[in-house]
């Protein structure tokens, strides 16, 4: 304790440091990236629980047919939606590659394109809900379908919020080419890729298989 206070006193004299000492952090990964990694791991566990429920209902409960008659899933529309979301991963990657090269125009274009593609995905998903012909109360199939796709839709919404902040800051010129100067785009970009990967798994599992 005494050595710590002496160290603080010395650093106070030398670096005008105020407050408690800096928390220990890894030299291999910065804290913001570690934070989003741990968050994504927790969300993967959440999705895992929903997938476990889906497979239990489909395999263990073993209905006569899946989806149960007369429900049908719009595979083509969802497939087009999948293509839109995959494109948005490419645009956010383009945005990040641009800012790594110091191209702020590319960053802004990429972020706006990503946001528009993500909003289009969400709009099509909501429109699909309106025209599906069954609700979350129609059998366990309806319940798990809306739960799984709705959970993903909520994640897309959160991702759009993060992208909104990043886009506004990009237009205000907050970001630079150095890694530590564009973490405000890097972290939403990582989250957006997670959302995209999750949708591919949801689409293949729920709509195709």
């Amino acid at each position, binding site marked *: 304790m005494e050595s710590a206070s002496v160290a603080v006193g010395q650093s106070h004299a030398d670096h005008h440091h105020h407050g408690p000492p800096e928390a220990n952090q890894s030299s291999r990964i910065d804290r913001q990236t570690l934070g989003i990694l741990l968050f994504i791991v927790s969300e993967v566990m959440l999705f895992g629980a929903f997938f476990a429920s889906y497979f239990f209902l489909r395999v263990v409960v073993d209905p006569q047919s899946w989806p149960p008659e007369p429900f049908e899933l719009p595979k083509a529309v969802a497939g087009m939606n999948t293509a839109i979301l995959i494109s948005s*991963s490419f645009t956010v990657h383009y945005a990040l590659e641009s800012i790594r090269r110091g191209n702020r125009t590319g960053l802004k274009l990429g972020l706006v394109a990503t946001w528009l593609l993500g909003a289009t995905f969400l709009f099509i998903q909501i429109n699909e809900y309106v025209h599906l012909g069954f609700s979350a109360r129609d059998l366990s199939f309806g319940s798990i379908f809306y739960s799984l796709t709705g959970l993903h839709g909520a994640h897309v919404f959160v991702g759009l919020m993060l992208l909104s902040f990043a886009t506004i800051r990009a237009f205000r010129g907050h970001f630079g080419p150095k890694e530590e100067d564009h973490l405000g785009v890097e972290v939403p*970009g990582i989250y957006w890729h997670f959302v995209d990967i999750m949708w*591919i*798994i949801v689409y293949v599992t729920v709509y195709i*298989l």
Partner: protein
Amino acid sequence: MKFNEAAVFKWVVIVVAAGALIVAVTLLTRPLVGALLLLAIVIAGCIYAYRWWISQKRH
């Protein structure tokens, strides 16, 4: 291991390719075949992850 957006994007491309393969196989054959392919890919992924973890422990 470098964990940044570029590294995660690499995995987006891999998952998209795997997903496209499963969709194509399922539509051309039966859902059971697609499910078995998905299982095989998941098992391959687990083996890859284990081998990567072992290599990280060695370093």
